[in-house]
């Protein structure tokens, strides 16, 4: 049998991919630290005092953005501190535990961060000093798959940044 071939000339192009360099990202993550010099906990005007003595984070119930009484107590103190220390602004990070789909958890983290932001504003902090970001379930603090870990991961963290460096 003779084989004749008729080319239909269907062609395609395969891309050759290399690596690109992403530009450096914002330096925060799950630990609530930023590039700021935290200072000493004993100094009531220091970010270290805000983080450790007041508490930079509050925890949330499962699939909720409701502020508990405990959370409100911490946030009142955060708001008071920010009202006194006007050289600082803050990014409020919202986080979720791993029991949820990725996109929904970004929405849930945003809702939590927003609840904190609204509360701080209601206590007198200017809205333009407060930004929100949601990490969804991308940045857990604790890594076990049990409620003891989940309860710590369902959090918001108020991360201070200097007002002066833009």
């Amino acid at each position, binding site marked *: 049998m003779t084989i004749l071939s008729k080319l239909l000339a269907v062609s395609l192009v395969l891309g050759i991919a290399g690596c690109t360099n992403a530009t450096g990202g914002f330096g925060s993550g799950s630990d609530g630290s930023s590039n700021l010099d935290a200072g000493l906990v004993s100094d009531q005007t220091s970010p270290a005092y805000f983080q450790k003595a007041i508490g930079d984070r509050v925890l949330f119930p499962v699939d909720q953005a409701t502020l508990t009484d405990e959370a409100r107590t911490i946030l009142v103190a955060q708001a008071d501190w920010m009202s006194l220390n006007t050289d600082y602004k803050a990014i409020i990070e919202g986080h979720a535990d791993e029991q*949820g789909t990725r996109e929904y958890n970004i929405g849930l983290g945003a809702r939590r961060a927003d609840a904190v932001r609204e509360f701080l504003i209601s206590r007198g902090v200017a809205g333009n000093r407060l930004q*929100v970001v949601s990490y969804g379930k991308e940045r857990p603090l604790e890594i076990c798959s049990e409620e003891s870990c989940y309860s710590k991961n369902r959090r918001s963290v108020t991360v201070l940044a200097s007002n002066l460096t833009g």
Partner: protein
Amino acid sequence: MMKVLVGILAGLVLMSAQAMAQSGPLRIEITEGVIEPLPFAVPDFVPDGASASEISAQLSRLVASDLSGTGLFREVPASAYISKVTDFSAPVQYADWKAINAQALITGSVKVSGSRLTVQFRIYDVFSGDELGTGLQFVGAPDGWRRMAHKVADVVYSRITGEGSYFDSRVVFVSETGPKNDRHKRLAIMDYDGANVQYLTDSAAIVLAPRFSPTGDRVLYTSYETGFPRIYVLDVGKVERRVLEEQDGTMSFAPRFAPDGRTVVYSLYKGGTTDIYTLDINNGKSKRLTNATSIDTAPSYSPDGKQIVFESDRSGTQQLYIMSASGGEARRISFGQGRYGTPVWSPRGDLIAFTKQSKGRFHIGVMRVDGSEERLLTASFLDEGPTWAPNGRVIMFTRETQGAKGRASLYSVDITGRNLRPVRTPEGASDPAWSPLQK
């Protein structure tokens, strides 16, 4: 760069059209759920010259592995063969293949001349003693032999099932390293079977949920490069990216292309709520489609571009809704027990794939567009994020294991719930998105 030229063997195109029209009794009906896979034989394609023998063997094995991997076909091992195929043009000894119950026989030849690889093949319906369709020829570069094998397997699959195929396709995904509390993520792209992995970003910033354009040349994804989630579009060939949405005080995520390839639907968090918007990537014009205090996210277009399926917790829990592509009233389609998220419209238009959370377990499932005939295909500690094979018959998704050492990896399953298989990746992997069939 690689080119593959497709040709029809055996002369007259007219004859081939007739041969294609009568598909004969060799047939698999995928929708019925195949319990007994169809036995086939792929003797190593006949090498034309010694230099072709290695590629020939590899290529033939890959054709067999594509077909067997579907769960619809079962390879009859070479050790059972009675006939040897040493001449691609010689008549087939049907009795010898019948005797070992090979219902389909695929023979071929492989020739390497310089930088040119030529693959010819034919498919036989052994029990009717006939060729199934006409022979074909692919021409390309020798390093493109994997794609040629996938193309051969695509033809075999399509001729026997009467359905579109998916082997010559790619998957873009998030490659993951590190423990849960220090995970590094970067975008990667690979062949559907896990071969030829290339990285498209580094892991300096979190990247999430890449999605192909309708032609497979661009990828939308979410990155935290600026410190906030923003949607980007990446040219796969040039590996160049640009941000699409950049408003202070907002976050954008969950992007997906419309079938027109220029409209992007996505979630935007702004002013305290997460709603669904569209953006024309050519002129930058955006439009708000939902306006509620609920979390409205994970939008996905119908193949005709007229409707959008998405998830919302407006009823109190995550459920699936369908609205017009221009927004307006949405109708709920999920009513079962539990939470439903990440809906994805099948490329065939008939089904919606989703993630379901119920009683502490996660499932990948499918339902009809009206919400009927819900079928759960998987169950585990954490399954999520389905993506459709180009033929709408197979779904790939992320499975994450439990506990401190939990790791994400990719799996595929067919829409009957059969043939659950891991997809091999060099590192942990999540958020797969299947490309259209390559041209």
